[in-house]
């Protein structure tokens, strides 16, 4: 089973990378209100049970993939 994890800076957390990208997009003429930059982690997880797979990926997020002080995460499971 495959899983995609989206890690984002939490609301209210300063995101200087996002700010710099927003300014660059404005330079290109795009009317952008806000840009926030996160991270995508694509995973291949063992086992076929979606509930177990999700629980496992959640533990991965809590322990390593995201820092709960500043980042939120979303998990998307993709059946083969």
């Amino acid at each position, binding site marked *: 089973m495959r899983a995609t994890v989206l890690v984002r800076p939490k609301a209210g*957390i*300063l995101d*200087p*990378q996002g700010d*710099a990208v927003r300014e660059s997009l404005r330079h290109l003429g795009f009317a952008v209100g806000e840009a926030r930059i996160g991270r995508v982690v694509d995973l291949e997880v063992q086992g076929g049970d979606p509930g177990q797979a999700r629980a496992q990926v959640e533990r991965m997020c809590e322990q*390593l*993939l995201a*820092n709960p*002080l*500043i980042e939120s995460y979303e998990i998307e499971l993709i059946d083969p």
Partner: protein
Amino acid sequence: MTERERRPTVAVVVFPGSNDDRDAAWALRALGADAVLVWHGDDELPEGTGAVVLPGGFSYGDYLRCGAIARFSPVMRAVEGFAAAGGPVLGICNGFQILCEAGLLPGVLRANASLSFVCRDVAVRVEHSRPPFTNRAEPGQQLVIPVKHGEGCWYAPPELLAELETAGQIVLRYEPGENPNGAAADVAGVTNAYGNVMGLMPHPEHAVDPMLGSGDGALILASLVDAARDRTSMPVG
């Protein structure tokens, strides 16, 4: 040899990507310690270790988040055990990032608000003078110590920050107008609740001789050497 002359063992951990390990060892030796470089793959600290320093650099290429991978090094289990037993552990720059990611220090270090790498002397104020890191300095004393980092913006949520302020865990603060990275409440250095683990973004090991611009960093490292000496002179048993 008097007790004052005894050179206590201070372990300086070398991670893949550490680059201030030798400078830290040099500075500690100049201040009277027997500094020993310890490889990240070792699962023990040298016998008689009185203090541990996690040096600056870019451990594991700063992959995922700076400091996030180094906490899985075998040596970190020994460092965690040493800290849990009350041993003094100092994290400088990347070492600070590692201690935060390992959960040994509160907060997290993020990209500088300016997004620019900063490399310059900054003035910091000693908020609390006490062992094992700041007893050689006076409370309120200003120290000039260089920073060099791209991710030194310390952050803690407001409620956590308030707790740390009340508990006196904010030990070093950038002087007004000196904050080089946008850190919350101008925090340059924090300790854990017990006070035996500290992290700071400035590099005291680069400021131990006035010939290098400032000798102020020596006050922090010499405090640590004192603590290492005291710790290893305690009777065993």
